[in-house]
């Protein structure tokens, strides 16, 4: 039997007031009328806890758009889970936050798009900056721990020092600086988002110095830009190893991006239990462990470190989800990534970002 998962990413809705062009939601967003009703989510949380889940990440889209959020928070908390609210901050009033905290939210992750109001609001596609600053103050006043999440890309990477300073000013205990990972919307907008090598080289020491300076005050987590690396990221710490995602329509996914693999037979909580899906479904067992690997991964000692990288990226860039992640320097497809970097990092004409929208 596979080991039990620790985390459930509950994408309660794909609806969101923000329109970030790197959104981790799929390009085909789930519409409101296809969202799971409250009772299904309550059942999903019960099944997740029975399966071993101890952390519930209430995410979206914007989870505050679900009127049943208080009930869902209370239920996840009653099961003994750590409840993490992942929000844009838009729609988070003092009363709403106080109620959610009382029902058991343990931690809030607040997105921030850039260091300045102008940059933030341009990337988010709406005037959200002031509400985020206000939301951070409310979270601090409520006594909840705060993580600020910023996705980095060509349009804000030069401002990383300002982003760190702002996160400090907002009172964050953690700052996640995550270079864009190219799936869904981010893949569509890759030519507008891929950072240059010079940008990454300049940001690295700034982040490292801040990590040192802020030790014990604000932890800074830096997620690498994998296209520029020689080895792949340890995506999800292995397929079906630690976490599962339930999408707004009840699809159960080994990672939030997994719908990009069209041959993956995705199961739904409306039809099967999380236990059966986690342990026995073709989708979760497809790339679990090491048996599915071919060379160069199969005989590579790094497979214990990076698990062959990302299956979704392998599919997107090579057409084969079982291939070695093509960012790996040992992949026969590394030239594909190099060609993308050569052609998209410094385009002759800066492409417009396709803002995230329901189709």
């Amino acid at each position, binding site marked *: 039997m596979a080991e039990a998962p620790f*985390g459930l990413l509950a994408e309660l809705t794909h609806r969101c007031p923000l329109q970030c062009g790197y959104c981790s939601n799929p390009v085909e967003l789930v519409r409101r009328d296809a969202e799971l009703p409250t009772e299904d989510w309550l059942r999903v949380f019960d099944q997740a806890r029975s399966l071993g889940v*101890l*952390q519930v990440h209430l995410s979206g889209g914007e989870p505050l758009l679900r009127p049943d959020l208080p009930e869902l928070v209370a239920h996840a908390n009653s099961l003994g889970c750590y409840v993490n609210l992942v929000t844009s901050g838009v729609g988070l009033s003092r009363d709403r936050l106080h109620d959610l905290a009382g029902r058991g939210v343990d931690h809030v992750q607040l997105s921030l798009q850039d260091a300045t109001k102008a940059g933030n609001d341009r990337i988010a596609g709406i005037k959200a900056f002031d509400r985020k600053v206000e939301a951070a103050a409310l979270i601090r006043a409520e006594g909840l721990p705060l993580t600020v999440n910023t996705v980095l890309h060509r349009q804000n990477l030069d401002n990383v020092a300002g982003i760190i300073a702002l996160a400090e000013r907002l009172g964050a205990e953690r700052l996640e600086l995550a270079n864009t990972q190219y799936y869904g919307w981010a893949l569509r907008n890759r030519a507008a988002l891929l950072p240059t090598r010079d940008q990454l080289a300049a940001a690295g020491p700034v982040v490292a110095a801040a990590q040192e300076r802020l030790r014990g005050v604000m932890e800074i987590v830096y997620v690498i830009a994998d296209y520029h690396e020689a080895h792949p990221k340890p995506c999800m710490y292995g397929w079906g190893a630690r976490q599962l995602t339930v999408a707004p329509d009840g699809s159960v996914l080994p990672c939030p991006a997994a719908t990009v693999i069209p041959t993956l037979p995705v199961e739904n909580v409306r039809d099967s239990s999380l236990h059966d899906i986690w342990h026995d479904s073709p989708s979760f067992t497809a790339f679990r462990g090491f048996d599915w690997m071919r060379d160069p991964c199969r005989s590579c000692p790094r497979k214990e470190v990076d698990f062959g990288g990302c299956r979704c990226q392998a599919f997107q860039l090579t057409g084969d989800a079982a291939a070695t992640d093509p960012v790996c320097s040992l992949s026969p497809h590394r030239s594909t990534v190099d060609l993308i970097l050569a052609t998209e990092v410094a385009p002759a004409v800066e492409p417009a970002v396709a803002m995230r929208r329901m189709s």
Partner: protein
Amino acid sequence: MLALGAVPRIRRGVKRGYDQIRSAHVVLFPEGVLVLNETAASVVALCDGVRSVGDIALALGDEYAGVEPADVAELVARLVDRRVVDVDG
């Protein structure tokens, strides 16, 4: 090496619990989950912001044989690294 006079305290936002599924004490925090063995669970339970590392070693000595203050200090230092506890003093 953490001083025996250091006073550890569970960080804000960190939750302790018992997981019936894994039959183990756990600590839950934003970054993840730690599944604790019995000794670690006893140490975490005593990180109350009042007792020092030395006090915790003494208290555990009543319960378990052969508790070395240095071992407790090392365990607390690891919990500090994982951002499960803060240390004053």
